[in-house]
């Protein structure tokens, strides 16, 4: 028969599981097993911990896609106008502030509970930088092609323009990536704190 301590340990494990602290939940479950929890309870909880852990890992692994999606949609909306159309201050705020923060924050939240150091930053930077590469590359290539008779052409000038485009893309991606890193950290912290 399960005594009161065992019940408490099982309840604590359940709570830890609900909060996404899988290691703690497993530890408490082990304790409950030692305290004499029934095999049915142990098996059931163990299976749920494992399933939830897998689900979480999956979510973490795919957070980079989610972050990319958010940033991509954000930049897609920015695409509607060129930076001058938005006004440079507003555009800067949106392109290297709001959009990276939204995507980075999302990645950070999905990483909550993740204990691998730097994973959330890496994923946040990857997703936002990827979207920024698409956005800046797309926008500048359009401009380059419009500068050059409406179609990309081979030639020294076109090569220089493409080189400039590549440089712009890298720099813009770097800036957006850095912005997203900070946001992802905030996301992780807030989620941990709320937990």
């Amino acid at each position, binding site marked *: 028969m399960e005594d009161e301590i065992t019940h408490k340990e099982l309840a604590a494990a359940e709570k830890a599981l609900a909060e996404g602290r899988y290691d703690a939940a497993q530890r408490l479950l082990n304790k409950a097993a030692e305290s004499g929890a029934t095999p049915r309870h142990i098996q059931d909880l163990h299976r749920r911990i*494992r*399933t939830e852990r*897998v*689900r979480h890992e*999956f979510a973490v692994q*795919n957070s980079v*896609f989610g972050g990319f*999606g958010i940033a*991509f*949609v954000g930049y*897609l*909306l920015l*695409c*509607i*106008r*060129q*930076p*001058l*159309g938005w006004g*440079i201050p507003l555009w800067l705020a949106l392109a290297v502030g709001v959009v990276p923060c939204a995507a980075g924050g999302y990645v950070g939240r999905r990483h909550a509970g993740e204990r691998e150091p730097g994973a959330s930053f890496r994923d946040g930077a990857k997703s936002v930088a990827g979207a920024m590469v698409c956005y*800046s590359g797309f*926008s*500048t290539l*359009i*401009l*380059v*092609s*419009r*500068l*050059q*008779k*409406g*179609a990309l052409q081979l030639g020294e*000038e076109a090569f*220089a*323009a493409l080189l*400039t485009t590549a*440089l*712009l893309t890298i720099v813009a991606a770097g800036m957006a990536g850095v912005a997203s890193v900070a946001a992802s950290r905030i996301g992780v912290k807030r989620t941990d704190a709320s937990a």
Partner: protein
Amino acid sequence: MNIFIDELEPPTEAATQTRFALYIDGDFQFDTADEKVYHESLALPALSLLHAHKPGPKRVLICGGGDGLALRECLRFPNVAHVDLVDYSPEMLELAATQFAAINQHALEDTRTHIHICDAWDFLNGTLPYDLIVCDFTVPRKHEDTRVFSTEWFEALSACLNPGGIIAANTVSPQTTPEAFWCLMNTLRAANLKALPYRVCIPSFRDHGYGAWGFVIASRDKRFTTLDLKRISCPVATEQADLSRLWRGAHFTRAERALAHTAPTNTIDGGELLPLLLNPGLAGIEAGGLPDLDTPYDLNPLFNAIPIAHPYHTRAMIETLAEQVAGSVRDLDIPRLIDAVIKRSSRLSSRIVDELRKLKEFMQERVLHFELFSAWSYRLFAALVILMTLANAISPDNAFAKGSFSGGAHGGFSVSHSTGMHSSSSFGKGSFGAESGSPGGSFAGRSSTSSFGGQRGSAISPSRSFSSFSSSRSNVLSSPVSPHFTGTGFRTSYGRGTAVDINGSYERARVYNYWGGSYGHPYTQVYGGQRQPAQQQQPQPHEALFLASDDMSVLDNGDVVVNVSESVYILLTNGTAALMSAGSPDPIVMLYPDPELFANVRDQLAQQQSSVVAAASVRRDWLAWSGWTASFLPTVRSDRDELRNLTDLIHRLDLAQQRLGTPPAGNANPGLKPGETELFIGCVIRQDGTIALHEPDGRWLSTDLVTIKHNTDTHPCPPVLATAVRSALDRVLRDIKSGIKADTADLQQLRMDASELNSDMNQYVSIRDMYGDSSYEVDYGTDEIPVSEAIFKTRQNLNQTETETRATEADIEKLTTQQAVLDAAVARYR
């Protein structure tokens, strides 16, 4: 050898011979309906090349080709003195002498023909050399057949060639068996022969699924090229093959030629050719390494891994069987299967049961999540597509950049661009189309025909010209303005002693020296040598800054000038028009300032300005991204300079429109009377040969360049006016002559186009009639389209070409008349 003759159509009144097809061992050989395409393409190119490079009597050897059809082609050719036909099949030779005699035109009975019934290998030993060797073998279907496609065989042939001799051989299809085709090319090269492959489309071959058929011309000494085929001149007429287009079949794409890098060489011992023929596509897989096995349910790599080892096995048979197996596997209910297996676990070892349980758990946890993710990702993708579409609808320039980039207030424009060949393309939609178009100022050659044919009225300048009023009137309304810049004028030269046009092209700036302020009115002041009070200042030199058209420039002070000749121009400022000479700051004569002309000039300037504004906007956007790199990237620095110059030009064009002014409303320009020819704005040559100038008060002043008649007064004609009119006459005459020359060249091109189109049309019609099927696909340019569509398109092109031809002819006629008038005027006033 199993020979089968399929009688397709009995003789009719129209066709006295039976149409039949020949099959050897089940393989299609020829259809009498189009066999000449094959045999002419095989024998005649090689004979023609040989004829060109090595005239004189020729000895020819034909290996295979027992049907006598290749022999027929050889005998048709002049200077073929001796032909040895070697075939190992007496049955085929018997057929050639009897049933095929009508179609091979009794070639076997020709005195020059010598028939040898033996193996070609045996015949080659000790034979005399030949000028041409034609190989017309059937496609190999077993290993022994590939001996006559081997390196050893071609080496033996090469040894039997006279110096300068050629080998012409049929090969296999480069379309359906490309690896085998390039294997043969490598084989020829391995035999130290220089090979030129080409392919020919033969309708009956295509019907049998053989695709375009390959041939090769090879030589030991000379490397023949596509150019040789292009220049080929065949002294005998072909009936079905079009040798003038043969060179097109010798063009292989880089991807096609790349197969030669991986294709093996066929030797007698190696037998590399047969597997390639039976298993097209395998070589690429071997060369490309293992296929991507991660792709779910992509069974093609598996199918291709099963080789075909017999001619009667087909890929379709293997695919059908494998699909059945794969279908069963695909439909398996794996969890249920595992459950069923586990139920019988008493017969399995505990380890296997454990593994199965793990597999089941894995599938429930991982695979289900994966499926969830897949479904989610599809939704995301769909959402993105919708978003992109909406973004494109809202702002095409920024989202996909395929919308029109119009010239501002005047809207986008679509330029009908005649290619001069078979089609007419319309730009103006799609990728940056509206940015394409004729440049604002140059309408030489074809453009002069297509854009202005029939619109010139009596204007005599064949180019787009403001110096001719009646053309300027229509030009402004119809001329497209290109908003993009191809020259480097705005980057490097603008404002530095050069005049730049809307395309960024630049030329040395012409300098105009005249009094500042506006010129008031009457010519009498000029004759009297008086100046108006407003002109009591030093004459100022002004450089042309912007070339608004061929002959209209905007100066650095914003004034607009229209160049009449190298030394004469018309100054348009403050609502006045003054005929000026480069040698004097005073006007030669004031001209009638037609309000409509001023309005058109203003429109033209506004239109070009809006183009410049649009172009500057693109550069501004670009610099918003890249401006910070200007300190270390010279190209971005140039972009910045260009933007600065464009912005300056926008202001100058603003100024020009303001300074242009509005002339006082007066009598409308009456236009040209019958028999009158316009020399430049406000100046006409009348029917009697006198020259009339339109005065500011609307009256006309006439001159014979000796005297000037104004109302009833007569003055001596100032020499400067006489010189100006003569230089204008010279220039316009020059323009007309170049216009006629350009139109004549256009006309010639159009006639050639029409001839080619007619030839195409005849071919399409004959194909349609031959097969009675309008959906039969034919080559149309680089596409294959139904013959009915090809006929329709060709007819459309023909109609268009005819219309253009008529317009060009009318244009030439009109220009010739004007030339006669001007010639007479030049003779009179010289």
